[in-house]
């Protein structure tokens, strides 16, 4: 579609985009209701929600972030977070599978080479390519910006062999984005990101996923072996730090937070419905304490939502400043905000649902039954603090906070950063 700037063309394009947006949000609401009906079963069986993901494929939602020129919906991160929240309220696992997928799509769209993009993006848009992420590794745990397994080179190109202990939708994905040490002699912080199509890889199942919550994500353990070329390296050799700072980390945090917030929002909706039920109200009588508790939950989620919105705005403003390099995304203030967002929303969403269980009580909150999604939301959201551990992010932010002497607090109009340069530029941090 035309991207000619200015005048009528632009208005048509914007109108188009608004129509698409409204249609997508309506679709997401329908799907969310559908997923909500299957969520208890998915959770109980700890089974990959194949039917839900099939719906995401056939409705085009896998292509939400794929530009229209490649056949996608051409929507942005605001829309991603809206849809993430809507889907999260239906089924946390399905929504997280979709969020992880979107994080990888955003990475490919921005950092993939032209050939890779034109080959893969249309397949994503058509619903034929679900993406999964492999960053965790035995021996280094969750440390994102390092890798142990190294790419090897021989006359046939690159060889990738790696263990992957936790891969959301690992067995169902059609391709993976995998962090690898760039070469056998590279230090652990010299990391490349490889695109690995499932059909070109030997994928072996190693371990199952039998967890407290997020059970439908089927985040199994795998080993992976594949032959690749340099064209498969997203962001080029040793390009991962720049890709991570620019896209993978911020988009990941935004997408995950949207889902967690959506799960908590769904839980609050449930409790509000419960408390509006005249029968329940007669049973419980009037209570200032319950009002107080409910107000706190609502406040916490509104604050978390506002934080998410402000980070989105800040991210997009930095993006607009500089469309190519890692640019201002490595600014201390932005890093503090985008890491802090993940910590805060993961705690707020879980804390809110914990309180909701208390408000709803044993029968409506703590008991497992198809009509009471609270205990499932509680278990699902417990994963949020672990999923890229808050402890790691807090250690990082504690150090970063010392660098931001101006204390550039986040504000909604994006005027937050105290504006000094990043200590470390991922663009030229390499030899």
């Amino acid at each position, binding site marked *: 579609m035309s991207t000619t700037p200015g005048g009528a063309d632009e208005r048509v394009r914007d109108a188009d985009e608004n129509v698409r947006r409204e249609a997508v949000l309506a679709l997401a609401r329908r799907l969310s209701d559908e997923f909500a009906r299957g969520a208890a079963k998915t959770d109980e069986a700890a089974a990959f929600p194949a039917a839900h993901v099939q719906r995401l494929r056939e409705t085009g939602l896998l292509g939400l972030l794929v530009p229209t020129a490649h056949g996608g919906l051409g929507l942005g991160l605001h829309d991603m977070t809206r849809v993430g929240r809507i889907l999260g309220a239906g089924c946390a696992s399905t929504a997280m599978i979709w969020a992880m997928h979107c994080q990888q799509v955003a990475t490919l769209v921005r950092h993939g080479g032209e050939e890779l993009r034109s080959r893969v993006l249309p397949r994503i848009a058509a619903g034929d390519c679900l993406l999964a992420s492999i960053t965790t590794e035995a021996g280094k745990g969750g440390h994102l910006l390092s890798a142990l397994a190294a790419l090897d080179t021989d006359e046939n190109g690159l060889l990738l062999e790696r263990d992957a202990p936790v891969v959301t939708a690992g067995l169902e994905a059609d391709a993976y984005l995998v962090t690898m040490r760039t070469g056998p002699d590279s230090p652990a912080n010299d990391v490349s990101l490889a695109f690995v199509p499932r059909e070109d890889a030997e994928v072996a199942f190693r371990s199952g996923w039998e967890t407290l919550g997020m059970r439908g994500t089927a985040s199994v353990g795998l080993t992976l072996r594949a032959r690749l070329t340099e064209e498969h390296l997203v962001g080029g050799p040793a390009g991962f*730090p720049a890709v991570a700072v620019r896209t993978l980390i911020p988009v990941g945090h935004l997408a995950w937070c949207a889902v967690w917030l959506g799960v908590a929002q769904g839980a609050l909706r449930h409790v509000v419905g419960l408390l509006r039920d005249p029968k329940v109200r007669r049973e419980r009588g009037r209570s200032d304490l319950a009002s107080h508790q409910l107000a706190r939950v609502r406040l916490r989620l509104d604050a978390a939502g506002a934080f998410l919105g402000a980070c989105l705005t800040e991210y997009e403003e930095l993006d607009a400043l500089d469309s190519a390099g890692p640019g201002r995304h490595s600014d201390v203030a932005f890093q503090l905000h985008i890491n802090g967002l993940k910590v805060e929303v993961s705690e707020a969403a879980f804390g809110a649902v914990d309180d909701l269980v208390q408000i709803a009580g044993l029968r409506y909150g703590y008991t497992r039954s198809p009509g009471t999604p609270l205990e499932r939301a509680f278990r699902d959201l417990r994963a949020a603090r672990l999923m890229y551990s808050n402890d790691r992010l807090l250690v990082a932010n504690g150090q970063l906070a010392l660098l931001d002497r101006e204390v550039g607090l986040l504000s909604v109009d994006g005027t937050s950063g105290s504006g000094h340069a990043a200590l470390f530029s991922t663009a030229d941090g390499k030899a």
Partner: protein
Amino acid sequence: MTHTTDSATQPEPTQEFLGVLREFLPALPAGEEPAPEATLASYGLDSLGSISLMLALEETLDMTFPEERLSAETFRTIGSLWQTVTEIRQAP
């Protein structure tokens, strides 16, 4: 005092400086001298490591990095970091 930009005229890095540095370079083989022109990243220093390194240098050498010196350029190589350290310490 004028600031020199020619690293050839810089005094050699002190053992104190190198001692602090060593702690933050996981990929520097034990017993090996780090090369002044090698990038700190090539010895395994990552972004968070640079902050820890900066704070440790401030503590050990009793100095403060001014904001405008906290750049990728400063933390690029051992030579550039040492030069920055000497310049900051020489500044009035």
